[in-house]
């Protein structure tokens, strides 16, 4: 068994540098790699290109990197709910590329699975299609989209084993599996790291081959963005 376990977040992030392109799993604040983000804040590297569905909130998630002006460019599908982000974007400090969510997911998956490009109907006839090739298939227009090219992917899982196998929980799964293996180095942080052999091979969401480094995360805050409840009657 090939072991992927590293001691801690600082070993896991060895090699990250200013100017690099990073992928971050998560949807809103759910399933984000909290430990990796905290370490990037500590390292204070900058001029980063970040591929992430969202950009966090003002004081959590990628918002922490924005606050320190570490991000040069965001590639996202939805960036609401973040005043500092909006300020930096409108002032031109921050470059932003907005792309459809399904295209974002598939450009990750294409990088993971070795597809250089694919055709999708999403965005045809809109700003998103500007400068892109378009083509008709089955009477419907599609645009050509390319695989991402990133240096590191930071993902967060519920359980993992020392072989790098991952199991996600609920909707915290989201982009995390699609980003595994989609960058040169994939770093997985998990709530519970177990010895290889403890996870059922049939229940693994992402095989360890896609992950280069795995570590036991600490102090997960798992903040809820919109706490909605119903009353017991």
């Amino acid at each position, binding site marked *: 068994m090939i072991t992927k376990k590293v001691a801690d977040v600082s070993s896991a992030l060895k090699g990250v540098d200013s100017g690099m392109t990073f992928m971050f799993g998560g*949807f*809103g*604040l*759910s*399933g984000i790699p909290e430990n990796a983000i905290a370490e990037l804040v500590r390292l204070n590297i900058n001029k980063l290109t970040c591929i992430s*569905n969202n950009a966090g909130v003002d004081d959590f998630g990628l918002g922490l990197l924005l606050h320190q002006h570490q991000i040069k460019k965001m590639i*996202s*599908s*939805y*960036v*609401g*709910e973040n005043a500092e982000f*909006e300020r930096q*974007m*409108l002032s031109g400090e921050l470059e*932003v590329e*907005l*792309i*459809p*969510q*399904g*295209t*974002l*997911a*598939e450009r*990750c*998956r294409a990088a993971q699975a070795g597809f250089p490009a694919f055709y*999708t*109907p*999403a*965005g*045809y*006839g*809109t*700003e*998103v299609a500007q400068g892109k090739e378009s083509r008709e298939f089955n009477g419907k227009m599609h645009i050509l989209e390319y695989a991402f090219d990133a240096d590191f992917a930071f993902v967060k899982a*519920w359980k993992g084993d020392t072989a790098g196998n991952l199991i*996600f*929980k*609920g*909707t*915290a*799964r*989201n*982009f*995390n*599996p*699609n980003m595994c293996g989609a960058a040169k180095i994939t770093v997985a942080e998990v709530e519970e790291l177990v010895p290889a052999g403890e996870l059922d091979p049939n229940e693994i*969401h992402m095989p360890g081959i896609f992950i280069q480094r795995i570590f036991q995360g600490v102090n997960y805050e*798992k*903040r*809820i*963005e*919109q*706490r*909605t*409840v*119903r*009353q*017991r009657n």
Partner: protein
Amino acid sequence: MLDKNQIAQRIAKEVRDGYYVNLGIGIPTLVANYVRDDIEVEFQSENGVLGMGPFPFEGEEDADIINAGKQTITTLPGASFFDSAMSFGMIRGQHVDLTILGAMEVSENGDIANWKIPGKMVKGMGGAMDLVASADNIIVAMMHTNRAGASKVLKQCSLPLTGVGCVKKIVTNLAVMEVTNDGFKLLERAPGVTVEAIKQATDGHLIIEGEIPEMSF
């Protein structure tokens, strides 16, 4: 004139037995509250869940179980979780039967704009572009006019588009309209709203054939 809940209630009538439905943020989310009890429907949320249930009871919220609006939710028997690529596979592959979403503008050829106001608001399209580019059956839920009183039911959209020629039906606070090759066909009036009032509030070509019935719920 309908309120947001009544718009949702009217749209709920479009939901058929056996439908998988994706609900956008805002009014569309309310539709779930009005779907008939005697039909089976499953709600998909593009962040990776099928079979969404109501909000959790207080104290039972789970940060790992949310919908695309980032709200805490529950799941019903038969639910499943999946990754984003598979989620949009469901959408792009037309396995979702009905998409209900909000809009800032709709044009008479079915174009929709709902993600950007240049220089003012740029939240992003989220999953909306995938949804409108793929779904066969798209209903827009919105107010007929914007806060300034200008029509959102237009000849041509002025805002950056989310998708082209995709909207099939529109339910507003004033009317139910179908998008046809010839323009917006008026199907129903909101209770107490005259055809004339709808005409006034509509910028695009409105087709009025025969008596236009009042909505029923």
